[in-house]
């Protein structure tokens, strides 16, 4: 357990590394011996069928649930499970962006970026000019919201689904998260919106952070990730570096996997 706030620029190889993580819910073995390491500026796509263990793995990494066994290292230092929690994960600069319902619809953008972590004077009054300025800077320079008629004063209800994901990602980047976890950010979005989200994910990479990207759609994640990790029934069954497999090969691999799974299930 680290006592001090970790330095962003500190020397570490992996932002997070798991060793032999297993988790059982009664008889159901949700995770079985997961070994996984995420580099400090790596975008890792996490794919797999429903119930493969993607969400469970994320929950373990972000302190929502504790595994039955296994070790976790954050910035190469071992984590003490008894002290690991969601709050601790936040303190260690892990941020999860959920698919929806993380923005106040009727509120202006600048409030949404800072809510819960406002810049205030000592009487609790918000320094609005400063929050606006930072929000505009974030929009223009980090997220590429140029010439789309959006500024810090736009209300969220005027934004498209993809732009909303962008704001949530931008918020995580502003608060200096070193690892941003995206839980299916493109679900229920139109194609043009998906493209925006993928651009935002690239901006995570460009800003030097790491990202775990859970995705159903293989095409999205294949084009984007440095590495793809395939989960199947609680195990990692493939760890594919970018360029090792074409989308077609990957698709075939997953279909075969599914069929072999059923064969095993029957047999």
């Amino acid at each position, binding site marked *: 357990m680290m006592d001090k706030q970790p330095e962003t620029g500190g020397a570490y190889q992996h932002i997070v590394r798991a060793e032999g993580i297993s988790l059982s819910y009664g008889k159901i073995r949700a995770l079985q011996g997961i070994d996984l390491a995420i580099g400090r500026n790596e975008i890792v796509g996490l794919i797999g069928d429903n119930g493969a263990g993607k969400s469970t793995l994320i929950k373990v990494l972000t302190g929502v649930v504790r595994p039955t066994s296994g070790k976790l290292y954050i910035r190469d230092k071992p984590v003490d499970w008894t002290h690991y929690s969601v709050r601790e994960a936040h303190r260690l600069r892990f941020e999860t962006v959920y698919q929806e*319902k*993380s923005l*106040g619809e009727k509120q202006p953008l600048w409030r949404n970026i800072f809510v*819960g972590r406002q810049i205030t004077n000592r009487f609790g009054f*918000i320094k609005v000019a400063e929050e606006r300025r930072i929000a505009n800077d974030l929009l223009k320079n980090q997220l*590429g919201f140029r*010439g789309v*008629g959006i500024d810090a004063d736009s209300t969220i209800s005027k934004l498209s689904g993809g732009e909303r994901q962008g704001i949530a990602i931008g918020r995580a980047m502003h608060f200096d998260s070193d690892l941003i976890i995206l839980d299916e950010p493109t679900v229920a979005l139109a194609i043009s919106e998906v493209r925006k989200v993928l651009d935002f994910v690239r901006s995570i990479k460009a800003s030097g952070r790491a990202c775990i990207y859970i995705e159903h759609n293989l095409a999205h994640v294949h084009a984007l990730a440095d590495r793809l990790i395939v989960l199947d029934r609680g195990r990692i069954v493939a760890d594919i570096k970018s360029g090792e497999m074409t989308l077609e090969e990957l698709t075939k691999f997953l279909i075969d996997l599914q069929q072999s799974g059923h064969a095993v299930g029957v047999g």
Partner: protein
Amino acid sequence: MSTHLPASPARRPTRRLPLAQIEGLPIILVFLVLVGLFIVTAPQVFLHWPIYLSFLTTVPPMLVLAIGLTLVVAAGEIDLSFPSTLAFSGFLFSVCESSLGNPWLGVIAALAGGALIGLVNGLLVACIGVPSIIVTIGTQFFWAGTASILSGGQSNALQELDGSVVYTVFAGNLFGFLPMQSLWALGLAVFMWFILNRHRFGEHILFIGDSRHVARVAGINVMRETVKLFVLMGVLGGFAAVLLTLENLNYFSTQGQGYLLPALAGVFIGGTSVFGGTATIVGTFFGTFIIGMLEAGIVATGIAGFWVQAIEGVVFVAAVTLHLLMESPGKLKQLRALAGLGGRP
């Protein structure tokens, strides 16, 4: 990949006019039109100062309540118990004066009594999760009843306070003509504008009103902020009770009656969203003055007094409908299409 997002044609960077950014502008215009209308129809009354000075003594208690309600409604809650705060806190004030001879202790007791009412409301709403409309209907009955029991239903004349310091501070006339309660109400309105729009607490209220779930995800302690909100409303109710009791120099156990609907009407006429998440103190300010002015204005124009409520009702429904339509342009489009005014063919 381009770093620029494709511009969607539906939303153009239509530069808003600087004028349109003034908070509560529509309701300010309605207010001015109404004053103009009264000046034309009843010049003998509305071209002279006394009527306006009289508004400055009658409206402030209602305004103090409406300002508190604006924050409550912004959080997506409602408080219907404030008329009983006027009674209960008014009783505490009067009893401190008549039994202990200490009106300043009375002011503190009135504020504390209001805080207690608010605390009970807040705990029931935030911690147990009873809808605020239900809780505050119940507590309205309870505290109004308690005030009646404690005072034995008797009124309590406080004539001895006339000219005292406490009277001068809260209900006297500055420079011999400007009612002090109007300055208190104005100061409070400005202060609460800053709390709502510039303070962390106000932002939390707006997010809670927007969506409880989002507020929680953003790290807002929804329970604590909701309790604080109701306590604030209670304290403001207690303050309104002090202003009202001192202005009348009399306490009577039914003194809160007649404030419920006008104060709420002031908030909604002002443009605060019925659904929570947005609120305007400026709107409430002018909305409350509109409500406070209507009665005297209508009577002064020579229309028989029994028209007053009907006209108030029309103004209220029209204002709220208009605000709703402005809030969601989609509905406005539907309406236009319905009226055949260049909607869909």
